[in-house]
């Protein structure tokens, strides 16, 4: 079975631009979480979606938004990119909300903002 997949693998954007990152959870998983991992730091929670509804939000500005589709895939959108948005963006899926031992991470999307 395929694991969590993310696209694209790498992305280079210019300040002020908009970016969309995509995540496909493991088949059957209904919960998707997004994390930002700045170089040299641990991942920081951005959003969690379960059954297409936002169930959690971290301390990130409104420039960050996300959504989950009927097939449980998810998009993370970032508007008005800043240099500080350069990071590895990780997606994690789990079977359902609250099952902590079943959170599986994808390989991430490396975003570079110049």
């Amino acid at each position, binding site marked *: 079975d395929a694991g969590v997949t993310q696209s694209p693998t790498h992305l280079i954007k210019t300040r002020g631009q908009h970016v969309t990152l995509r995540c496909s959870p493991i088949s059957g998983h209904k919960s998707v979480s997004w994390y930002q991992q700045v170089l040299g730091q*641990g991942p920081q929670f951005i959003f969690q979606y379960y059954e297409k509804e936002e169930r959690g939000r971290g301390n990130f500005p409104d420039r960050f938004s996300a959504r989950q589709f009927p097939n449980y895939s998810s998009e993370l959108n970032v508007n008005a990119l800043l240099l500080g948005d350069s990071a590895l963006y990780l997606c*994690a899926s789990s079977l359902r909300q609250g099952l902590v031992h079943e959170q599986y*991470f994808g390989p991430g999307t490396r975003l570079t903002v110049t």
Partner: protein
Amino acid sequence: AQTVTQSQPEMSVQEAETVTLSCTYDTSESDYYLFWYKQPPSRQMILVIRQEAYKQQNATENRFSVNFQKAAKSFSLKISDSQLGDAAMYFCAYRSISNTGNQFYFGTGTSLTVIP
């Protein structure tokens, strides 16, 4: 908010030897989960081991075991018989059991080098 501290940015160990990675956390909650994740250069985060705070027995997964000291809010990872494939970044993480979401709080990580 909960904080997780990993005070060892880098550690090294000889192949086949044992190494212990440290983690402390701050919380006012009485029940929670603690995790160790491994992130190799491929970037994929892999769950190594999990500990429920209400369990007094330390978790063990093959060569990996933890020393969970709830009163001291300490959660160290011991890797026995270290192998070259153990080289990676290791992250300690905390999750509130009362949080209905899946928000994890991660430490800043420890980079483990395994010397042949």
